[in-house]
């Protein structure tokens, strides 16, 4: 629980400051975080009244995501390397992105419901409460069972870290939590930007899923598996590559695709910050457009 909330501090409901008036941005952010916490606590309490059901669904989530990795294991029972990467290295890539995505899914997983909320008019209910919309919205239906996905990601990541053949330096060791956290924040920004897009195109949830879920699947494999153009597109258009590949390849001591400079391995926190800024702008613009056009 500590981790998802600290992730929330970095990204979280900040962009929802829609009142550009006298109310200070800092106060709005603090209020947003507070309300996020209140709503999350409400849902957790409600989940915990049905402990058995919670354990079952968490276990189910864990199993489903575990099967995903088992598919990769099966592949490796036939080949020794995939795109030149060993099983340990793949596990490292997979585990890091799985954990990052799991964190985002836990903390922000509800934001893709915006389109439905706009269509059925329930967004208005959030707009009449004294709290930023995004904070209320991200915390809605907070599902602790999504911890299953994070657990699976962490297990695979641990397996990868133990198996890979790396000369560990403090810098490389620091790189691992940095890439998971920045990755989670980048995912969150993509989630929010995607949600903001739904202000204009209310059926765009599908488009967003292709970026987030599709993106996460893509990153579970090394870049050499995919065509160069696709890789370039992913690196430059959607900064998802920063989530995983660049820092991971640095840790593994592997050459970069497209001859990118090594220093990019340290870029993720910066990229995450830029993504948050962009997502915040998109969200604000979306909300403003909603408030001037109605449902």
């Amino acid at each position, binding site marked *: 629980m500590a981790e998802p909330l600290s992730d929330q501090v970095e990204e979280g409901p900040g962009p929802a400051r829609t009142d550009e008036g006298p109310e200070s941005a800092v106060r709005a952010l603090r209020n947003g975080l507070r309300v996020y916490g209140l709503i999350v606590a409400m849902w957790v309490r409600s989940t915990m009244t049905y402990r058995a059901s919670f354990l079952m669904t968490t276990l189910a989530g864990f199993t489903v995501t575990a099967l995903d990795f088992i598919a990769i294991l099966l592949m490796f029972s036939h080949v020794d390397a995939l795109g030149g990467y060993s099983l340990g290295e793949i596990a490292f890539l997979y585990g890091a992105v799985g954990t990052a995505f799991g964190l985002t899914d836990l903390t922000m997983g509800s934001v893709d419901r915006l389109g439905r909320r706009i269509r*059925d008019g329930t967004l208005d209910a959030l707009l009449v409460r004294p709290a930023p919309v995004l904070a209320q919205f991200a915390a809605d239906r907070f599902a602790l069972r999504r911890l299953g996905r994070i657990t699976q990601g962490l297990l695979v990541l641990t397996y990868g870290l133990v198996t890979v053949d790396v000369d560990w330096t403090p810098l490389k060791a620091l790189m691992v939590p940095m890439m998971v956290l920045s990755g989670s924040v980048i995912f969150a920004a993509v989630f929010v930007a995607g949600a903001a897009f739904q202000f204009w195109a209310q059926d765009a949830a599908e488009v967003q899923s292709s970026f987030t879920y599709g993106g996460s699947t893509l990153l579970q494999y090394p870049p050499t598996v995919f065509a160069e153009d696709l890789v370039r597109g992913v690196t430059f258009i959607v900064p998802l590559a920063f989530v995983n590949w660049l820092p991971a390849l640095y840790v593994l001591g592997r050459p970069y695709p497209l001859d990118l400079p090594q220093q990019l391995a340290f870029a993720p926190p910066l990229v995450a910050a830029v993504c948050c800024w962009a997502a915040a702008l998109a969200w604000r613009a979306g909300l403003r457009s909603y*408030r001037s056009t109605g449902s």
Partner: protein
Amino acid sequence: MADTADMIEVDGVEKVFTVRRRAGLLRREKREVRAVDGISFRVARGEMVGYIGPNGAGKSTTIKMLTGILTPSGGRVRVAGIDPARERTRLARRIGVVFGQRTTLWWDLPLKDSYRLAHRMYRIPDRRFRENLDRCVELLDLAELLDVPVRQLSLGQRMRGDIAAALLHDPEVLYLDEPTIGLDVISKAKVRGFLRRLNEENGTTVLLTTHDLTDIEQLCGRVMVIDHGRLMYEGSLDGLHEAGGSERTLVVDLERELPPMVTELARTVRVEGPRQWLAFPAAQSAAPLVAALAERYPVADLSVREPEIETVIAKMYAERPAPAPDQESDPDPDPDPDPDPVPVSGG
């Protein structure tokens, strides 16, 4: 600014929506709909005002601008001295909103969870929260509903739950958008009684939109009529009936089929078997008419129908030039409720 006499100030407010419509294969046609077209009014502190009009007249759009959900395209709005569009969250602490169609409660959770969250979210002092909740639970009959998930509540129960949720933080202004829509007669009476008491005891300013003229009759000292985004009438309900020359209808079931009844107090407008419909001026009491009929005819049953808002407004138009006919569609779709038959005792 807290001590201005007027709680709500609306000056020349407009809301223009751009509607895109498919015209042909690729071409999209843009069209402007003026949902609210230059409205000005004042609501004094502690006043209870009805805001009525047909479907798509601009009622809900106005309410949304008064809460800060929508930003006006033009004009000036102040609620408790605050500009709603600019300071939506600051205003939110001072207003309560009930949407008849949609709940502001947390759908999948027990009713009490919504209240507990409001307690923290609005930072209501513990004692105040307790008092307000107890009072709402008592007057709105919520005791047995507190542990029920909101989605399992009936419409009337949910509406009462919503009203309580809107009042826990002691709002100075309460907006009610169709608070009695779809409710049965008993729930309606309960809701009306509660609102009247709230207004008398707390001095809460209330602005309510409705389709039901009975709501207005029982609650509001003043009524504003909006149609095609313009304010058509402002004043008392009796004045509205006079201005529109509106009529109530007495539906009489006779013991057997008879020729149309004759009385100087009303005119018979329809006969169907033993049932007859008599129209009489809305401002006039039904009692003398009922007495006169019962004396001369074998009456089995009676009921009075209030005029529908649509009819009253249509009659007002008959006496005024109609506005430009270019505005058709519905930027603010309200459902179409049935007019209430009001039972008359002693039939």
